[in-house]
């Protein structure tokens, strides 16, 4: 304590100038701050920067992931809508096709039926004609023999001779036809 008082008195006598630096303090300040600087540069700043960078990339990564998910969902939705539209289109197409096919079948059927009926009618007509022809032929033969038989009996002359017989019959028939035509106009049909 005594010492301090003396020193204080000395200091006052010397009129201490606070601007004059203590050389040890200059060096010490440089050294201590230098060490602090290197420690901070090596251990603290990279650590903080790494954390900041990681945080930034995590946020950006999250945003990017959300964006890609959204895009994916949009694409899937569009695809589904397209599929739905395609299905609708397909259904309409099939319905249209079926309708066309039905109409075609109906038309074909109608045509077929028409043809069939025509065919039946034709067939009937032909058959009738054939039967008539047959009837006419058989009638002609029968009428000939009857007439010759009858005429033979009336005339008493045998007309058994073939040639003669047919000649007579033909003549008779020709006369008959001519008379029928003159009276009837329409003749034998």
């Amino acid at each position, binding site marked *: 304590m005594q010492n*301090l008082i003396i020193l204080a008195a000395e200091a006052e006598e010397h009129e*201490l100038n*606070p601007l*004059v630096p203590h*050389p040890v303090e200059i060096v*010490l300040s440089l050294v201590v701050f230098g060490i*602090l600087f290197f420690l901070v540069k090596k251990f603290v*700043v990279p650590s*903080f920067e790494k*954390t900041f960078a990681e945080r930034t990339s995590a946020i950006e990564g999250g945003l990017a992931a959300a964006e890609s998910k959204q895009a994916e969902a949009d694409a899937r939705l569009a695809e589904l809508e397209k599929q739905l539209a395609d299905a609708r289109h397909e259904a309409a197409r099939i319905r249209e096709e079926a309708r066309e096919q039905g109409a075609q079948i109906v038309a074909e059927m109608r045509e077929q039926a028409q043809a069939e009926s025509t065919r039946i009618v034709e067939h009937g007509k032909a058959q009738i004609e054939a039967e008539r022809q047959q009837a006419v032929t058989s009638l002609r033969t029968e009428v000939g023999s009857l007439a010759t038989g009858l005429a033979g009996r009336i005339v008493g002359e045998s007309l058994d001779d073939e040639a003669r017989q047919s000649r007579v019959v033909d003549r008779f028939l020709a006369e008959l036809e001519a008379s029928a035509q003159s009276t009837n106009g329409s003749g034998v049909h």
Partner: protein
Amino acid sequence: MSLIAMSAVRAEGFVPPGPGDFNLPPLGPDKTFEFMGQTMYLGVTKPMLQLVLAAVLVFGFFYVAARRQAMVPGKLQYVGEQAYGFVRNSMGRDIIGSHDFMRFVPYLFALFFFILVNNVFATLPFIQFPTFSRAGMVYALALLSWLIYNYVGIKQHGFVGYFKHQSVPAGVTGPILALLVPLEFISNIVVRPVTLALRLFANMLAGHLLLILFALGGEYLLLHADAVIKPVGILAWVLFLAISFLELLVQFLQAYVFVLLNAMYISGAVSEEH
């Protein structure tokens, strides 16, 4: 402080505090040496220990805060990140510019918190001494900053180019230029470290001197003055409290200004345009 009390008693009357109050004796034997006409203590003094303690505190805190590197920070990491981000963004990125501020961030960051903690020691109970009221400690930091901004400037522009960059203002010609060149040179190269050092040192010294004055003055008035004047001692102590809070602000501001100016000097030295 006991030193002052002693001298006050000895002198039989109020002795105002002076620069001698900042010349603390070393721990251990009182050896002295002569330097620039002054007698200096040789040994480990309180401000020297404070200087080391501040470095240890700053590194310790930020090392622990930064170590976990969690995506979602805890309280400690959050405080550390905010403090780091404050220096990094408001003094590094915003002033030096985003292209090459990162190489100066460790320096600015360490400097700011080193000065801040040392300044706050002036108010911190049981320490209560501003480390940077010791001129030598501030001179060192100012010298360092002078070396740094001149070095990066010379590296950027070359030796002649850098001095031209710092001394010749753009868009000025003729006799005005002849007038401005020495002025610019003096203000940008010569005066900067001096103002940088004196601003911090003087603020710390004067602020603490004021606190000592109010504390001892109040004590003296209460103990030795007439009964009528004694209440003024109480007023002095109230003012002591108020000035202590003001000092807290000054401590922060001086640290901020010191580092901000460092950033601006660096920015000016590396910038392409004037």
